[in-house]
Every structure is written in C-alpha cells, then in structure tokens.
C-alpha cells in the first residue's frame, strides 16, 4: 500500500489528499498502512478456513449496518460478489436460519458487535456445539474484532474531517 488515501478506512471516511488533516494522517502512515494489511488478513486471508471471503465480507457488512456505518457497509457489500447466502447474511434482519452452524455464527457476530460486555463462556461453548471448530471460532472473533476497530477508526476520521 503506497498511498494511505487508498486504504479502506480513509476512503470510507471521505478524507482526501487536499484536506488540512493530510499532514496528521501522513504522520501515522505506518499505522494506516498496517490497518489495511490487517483488513486484508481478516477479510481476504490466504487460508480462510471455514469462513469464505464472501461470508467474511457479508458479516463485515452486517456489522457496519448494525453500527449505522453506511460508508463501510457499501465497501463490504461490494466485496461479497454473487453469493446468494452471503447476500442474505449482510442483512441484519436475517436471523432465522435453518443451518445450525450459520445461525450460531450470526448470533455470535451480532452479540459481540453490539454487547461485548454481555458475552459469557456459554456463548463460546454454543459455537462449538453448533459445529464451529476452534480455529474458526478464533477466525470469526478476529474478523468481528477487526471490523469493530475499522468502524470506529472510520467514524473518528470522518468526524475529524468535518470538525477540524
């Protein structure tokens, strides 16, 4: 990533090269570049395990919508492609799912996104009972955790752009 203004978070924030904040952003070029590398590792990893790239983009879109973060939701939606189920996952209203494993993944994503403090040991056990492997539990947790960061970074950058 040669240009921080091409990173997903800065793009979604609407900040551009000619904004007065460009100097402050350039001062943290390393961090914004590493943020994009973490984005790619969480959304499009070489070894996605039991969470496909389309499912990851859909869960991220769902999270952005739960956070009313439309700029990122549009970005993640564009990464889903033509996968029909993933398209449904991206809708936070899609909760009654026949597939037990997918239902558990959606429930956990929504819970950790919206009520982190309310998560208990039984919530992790519920994923295991629904057939989510321990590797996939960590992959899902990293995805939800990274996107939660990306959302707050984007919201903060956009607000800085509007107010400073």
């Amino acid at each position, binding site marked *: 990533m040669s240009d921080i203004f091409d990173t997903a978070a800065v793009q979604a924030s609407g900040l551009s090269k000619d904004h007065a904040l460009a100097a402050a952003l350039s001062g943290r070029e390393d961090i914004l570049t590493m943020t994009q590398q*973490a984005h790619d590792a969480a959304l499009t990893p070489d070894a996605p395990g039991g969470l496909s790239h389309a499912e990851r983009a859909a869960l991220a879109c769902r999270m952005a919508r739960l956070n009313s973060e439309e700029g990122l939701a549009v970005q993640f939606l564009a990464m889903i492609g033509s996968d029909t189920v993933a398209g449904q996952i991206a809708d936070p209203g899609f909760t009654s799912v026949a597939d037990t494993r997918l239902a558990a993944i959606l429930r956990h994503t929504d819970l*950790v996104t919206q009520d982190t403090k309310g998560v208990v040991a039984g919530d*992790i056990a519920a994923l295991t009972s629904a057939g989510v492997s321990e590797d996939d539990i960590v992959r899902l947790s990293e995805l939800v*955790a990274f996107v939660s960061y990306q959302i*707050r970074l984007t919201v903060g950058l956009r607000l800085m752009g509007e107010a400073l």
Partner: protein
Amino acid sequence: MSDVLQDFTTKVPHWRPRVMPIKLEDATPDQLEALKVTPSNTKVSDYVLVLARDSETLRERTPLFNAIMYNRGGMSRAERELGAVGASVVNRCVYCAAVHASRYNVLTKDEAVMERIFADEGKTELDPRQQAIFDFSVKLSQTPPDVSKADMEGLKAAGLEADEILDLVLSSALFGWANRLMHTLGDPVENED
C-alpha cells in the same frame, strides 16, 4: 464460574482461555512467524497461543498494536492508555482495563485517576483534558459509536491538536478490537503468582 473476576482492578489478573491454545511444539512455520518465536524468546502467553489459530491476522495485529500504543510523537503514551481504558470500561474487559490502567499509573505516577474511573465507571470527574479524552473514548466505544462534532470541539477546547486527536481515535478504536478478543475468548481470574 465463581473464580472469574467481575470488578475492575489495577492488579493484572491471570487470563484463562475458553478456546484451547495451540501447543508451541505443534506450531506451523506460519504460526511461529506470527508468534515471533525466536531461540531467545520462547515464552508465549496462552492468549497469543489462542490467537495463533488465525496466524494471518495475528501477524498483522501485533506490530499494529505496538505502533498505535508506542510510536513517537502525537498524544502521550499515558493518554493513549487512558483511551484504552475508556473502551475497556465500556466493554467491561476487566483484563484489558487492568493492564492499561496499571501502565497509566506507572507512566503518570498518579493512581487517583484510575481509582476514580473504576469507582464510577464512566461518570467520572477528572481534570478537563483527561475528562475530554476519557469521555470521547467511552462515546466512540458505543454501538453505534456516539460521537459528534461537539465532542470534537470539546477535545480542541481541552487543548488537543489534530495529531493527538488522531492518536486518541486510534487507541480507543484499537480497544474495540482488543476487548472483543480478550473478553470473549477467555476469563480474568485471580493471579496466583
């Protein structure tokens, strides 16, 4: 379980995983690289051994975390710790709050701020600059984030420059990430060491 710590503390607890950590002797080359294991550094925490189950993300996360919390310039290290604590209080990550409150105390040699934050949990009265930093972190950590132009004006009025506000956004947002791993994948328990 009854031994899980529920109350905020500045004494760093032990972290007990809910997902089995990988065994170091079974780690793949990718996992070893992400774990930064070298012949002189073979001590790896259970937390990092759990995260090694997703080595691609762990590899990116560690240097990013260190850069946001420790890079030169911008907002002071202590104030970044204050941002980390604000998020950790919202998400009730007792472990993260303990680690970063204790770092704040070491950096500032002032224990009164964290005592007040842990006693009041977000309704704390601090000095104007600390208050603006803490309040912003608490608001950014809500779902959806609850920050407005007025909060940004508050940070400016408290004397924060643009580069410092950027560091506050980064350190607060980072704990939206860290809390969602630490608080969901394990439990803080009494440290018997």
